[in-house]
């Protein structure tokens, strides 16, 4: 149980970075982002998590949301990186890599068994 809660909190902390990285590659719409993130089990999120995050990133001026024609069906709202988001992403990526490397250096080798 505690592991699930902790994993969930860890995932919440990095999903924003993951979303910014995905829209930096190319503009994407909401369900496309959910689908892409769900392809990575460690980053799997529901629409109920992704959409509020997208709204917060848009309010912070890091992503822009615009309606675009869709080849199949009605228009879709696509998210793209703003200038501010483009400037911030490298800093966030660097910070994540530094933290990740530091934590990795402290962890015991993976043995597949729980410590007693």
């Amino acid at each position, binding site marked *: 149980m505690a592991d699930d809660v902790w994993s969930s909190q860890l995932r*919440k*902390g990095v999903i*924003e970075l993951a979303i910014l990285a995905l829209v930096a590659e190319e503009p994407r719409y*909401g369900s496309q982002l959910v689908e892409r993130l769900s392809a990575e089990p460690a980053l799997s999120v*529901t*629409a*109920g998590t992704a*959409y*509020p995050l*997208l*709204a*917060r990133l*848009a*309010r*912070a*001026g*890091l992503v822009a*949301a*615009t*309606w*675009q*024609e869709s080849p199949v069906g009605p*228009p879709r*709202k696509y998210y793209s990186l703003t200038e*501010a988001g483009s*400037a*911030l992403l490298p*800093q*966030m990526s660097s*910070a994540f890599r530094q933290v990740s490397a530091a934590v990795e250096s402290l962890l015991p080798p993976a043995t597949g068994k729980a410590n007693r």
Partner: protein
Amino acid sequence: MITSLDDLTSAEAREAAEVGIAAAVADLPSGLRQEVAAELAAHLCEELDADSDELRIRALVALFGPVEAEPSGWRGALDRLVRGFDPAGVAARLAESMWQPADERLLLPRAVGLGWDLNLGAVAVRLGLIEPDAEDEPFTSTRPAAFRQASVLPAAMAVAVAAHYLARWRTLQQRLPGHWNLFGRPDRWTSRSSAAVIDLGTTLGPAVLAAWAARSDRPGPDKAGVIAGSALIASVGAVTTVARSLPEGRGWWIQPALVIGSAAAAGATLIHLALDGRRAEISRDLPGQ
């Protein structure tokens, strides 16, 4: 370290800080925003120098992470109860708790008092009526004509109730049901005159309020909350009027009709307003659509 955001020498940096803090607390209930914003500003000041630039501030703001929308447990319940007595911002909070299409939960903590509100936005998404992100911010792009159209619903119910009492006054019983139990049987009675005053009041009052809100300069979410709330109350008056005119004034469907009718009236109002906001945004981004 600085003592206030006003110490920042760059105007762009000050603006970035203010915009970032406002965005971070936007999801919080209006009664908490100022307090939390002050705490976030103090936290920022500890990390900044007077010549800190906009990029540095945006990086710090991004590290705020999710700001909890509600304190949990009894503290959250007490907070909601206290806020229920604060009239300022009630309409906007009503719209917030009844319309959150981006949030997949069907029940959200009640905006006023204790309990839960049905998240009609989530219902609309599940029914395929609207996308979770149909609007950048609910009801902020909705056009004035849509608000005026939405205010017609409570007005129509008021007209229908008035027409009913005018047309059927002579044939109505002198004593009409004043309240029904869960099984739809009257457990309190009132005079025909009192019933008419109550029913006209619970439809005409909201109709006037909705018409005023639709034509006011209040922000879109405020207007949406007032109009949807008016439609909800007016529908209770309208269903009650119909129920009072039943033979023996009873029917098993009365209580379900009151609940479903009020939810449907509020839901139809909010969906209409949200769909107009969606159309406005599409027109903005795709001229000619």
